């Protein structure tokens, strides 16, 4: 199982903090998440940063990044603070 953690306004749009999936890639996971949570969530996903085990997918294989049992995917909207 892959654990997907949602944060900030993505968490609010989804109505839950996390879900488990058997998706084998980030692309499949995103498809599943959009179907699961609907349009508002999908719109926010357009600006999201996706990390697999703490690494931005931009430094991995982008949306083709493969997922394995035990992986943790974290999805964040653009944040600010300091």
């Amino acid at each position, binding site marked *: 199982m892959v654990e997907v*953690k949602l944060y900030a306004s993505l968490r609010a749009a989804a109505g839950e903090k996390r879900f488990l999936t058997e998706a084998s890639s980030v692309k499949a996971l995103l498809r599943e998440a959009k179907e699961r949570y609907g349009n508002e969530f999908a719109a926010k996903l*357009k*600006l*999201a*940063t996706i990390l697999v085990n*703490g690494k931005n997918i931009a430094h991995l294989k982008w949306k083709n990044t493969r997922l394995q049992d035990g992986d943790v995917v974290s999805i964040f909207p*653009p*944040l600010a603070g*300091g």
Partner: protein
Amino acid sequence: MIGGYMGKVLEVDLASNRVKKYALPDRMLELYVGNKGLGARLLYDLLPPSADPLTEKNVFIVTTAPLTGSGAPSSNRFNITTKSPLTGAIVNSNCGGDFGIHLKRAGYDALIITGKARRPVYLKVDGDDVSIEDAAELWGLDTQKTQEKLPAGTGKIVIGPAGENLVKFASVISEERVAARGGVGAVMGSKNLKAVIAGGDQKVRVAHEEKFKNTCKKWRELSRRHPATGEELPRYGTAAFVNKCNATYTLPTRNFRYGTFSEADAVSGETLAEKYLVKNIGCRGCPVACGRQVELNGKKIKGPEYETVGLLGPNIMNADLSAIIEFNYQADLLGLDTISLGNTLGFVMEAGEKGLLITDLAFGKTSGISRAIEDIAYRRGLGDDMAEGVRFLSKKYGGEEFAIHVKGLEIASYEPRGAVGQGLGYAIASRGGCHIAAGYPIYLEANGPITVDPHSTIGKPGLVILNQTTMEAVSSLGCCIFTVYMFLPRQLIEINARSRFVSKMIRSGFLYGGNLIGRALSLPAWTLPVPPPFFMLPQVKAHAHCTGRRFTLGRLMELGKRVVNMDRIFNLREGLTAADDTLPARLTEELQRSEEPNSRVPLAKMLPKYYQFRGWSSDGVPRSKTLKALSIEQEPSLPGAAADSSGAAIAGN
């Protein structure tokens, strides 16, 4: 007169009860503008070299900027500049309380305080009338009661018991906002100055009123439409970064031993919003309102910021958010910087664990912390040593390798082994371990929406220079540094998330272009004669319409570089050297994670390039041609220097 300025500064000598009011040279305002930049120049000119920060010789300077009180969004900031008793370096502490607005209403762009009062006083600035008032009844009160006792309708800066007792990391409070870092509160305390109040009925006159109003309106809209400043920051506050830093191994945990905390979500901005948030609060005139009002035990109080949560939470292994809220409230009442406080507690806990000192404080245990905070503020028992900060503690008890400070200033809540550019920034920052003076490169390395490889050193010196230069400039314009988040516009974030190719191009631009950018920034202002894009840096156009002076991207960058160099020559004059541009051994030598071989900061690889791009020698000394190109005079240039004892006598104690 140039738009936005009130045309004079007020200088008060507490020893002789004399005041001087004078205009600053136009050239000085043109070069250093306001807030941080102007403060740095004034301190360099007015402070006798090598003065002890806690003696009457230190100079306490409050500066504003043209945009302060002008109606521009997120720009009512004022800045406190002085020589830090914690570091011996320059400290500039920026604050969003309303004191700056009221100081300008009283008719002054800056306030300079010298000397030391014989007994506790407060300074009252009522337009042209300036008096030094007895503060016997205020002395000993906390920051909230002190503000309540002072006349309503005025702008106030006050200290609490920590400032009175010269705690080296005592803060200054204005409304509920804090000028926190570097012990600015102790400097007020050392002058027997409990508070300053200011008020008047003058208005800030802007040069091009209609254009200015339109620009501010568009700026507000931009801020509201931006996903970070328009949605996430108002909704979750700055503590929204807890989870993001946790996910990227940049959340300081167990005295910076680790970068992740298994219970981070329990202390996150999301949990704060869900369980405690009553409403958003913020600095005057800011559409973002990133501050929190929370309810705890039936009481409505100010909620903690990200930095406080990180350092009074994961850094001491505390997953109890209600305890963090309480500690934060207590620290604000006593007037303590929560960043230094969290680090000091973390250091003592680790030193206690290692048998270097005897303490009941322990990681993961909240009992005893409230008492320790009070002991620090009143300098009781071990609290007396803790009041001196982490550097002092490590020299006295040992443990320098895990004493988390730079130049004596405890490090902010970002673990740099998860973002090595941030490590370089900390090492080089003029005031010490400050995330803002570091340039906040971590936003482009780990916690922002577009990030380069956080462990690679490629491009990092240039990236740090670009960020630092921009932030110092924006800060000198009087704007909150959070206005810089618009630098990455929504469209860029969206296209970066959509297209792998574009994302790679943008990141390569930052990564490989970083050093190029660093070099480009050493070009003179006339080579960039255009204004920056409005949708990225609206502050610049607002500043130009406010002052009536043309302001280009080149001048913005030149301003930032000038401030960095001004701070640098001040620190060098006060005896700091390149040897102080360093990090604690924990961060440069210990691996953060055994599975990540690059999880330490390779500082020695980045520092020489940084010096080179800045136009500094290999010893970190600005070359004379660098200073000349930035029109920085090394001779004090202010006509009325502090040592000059002229000026009108005023009523005083």
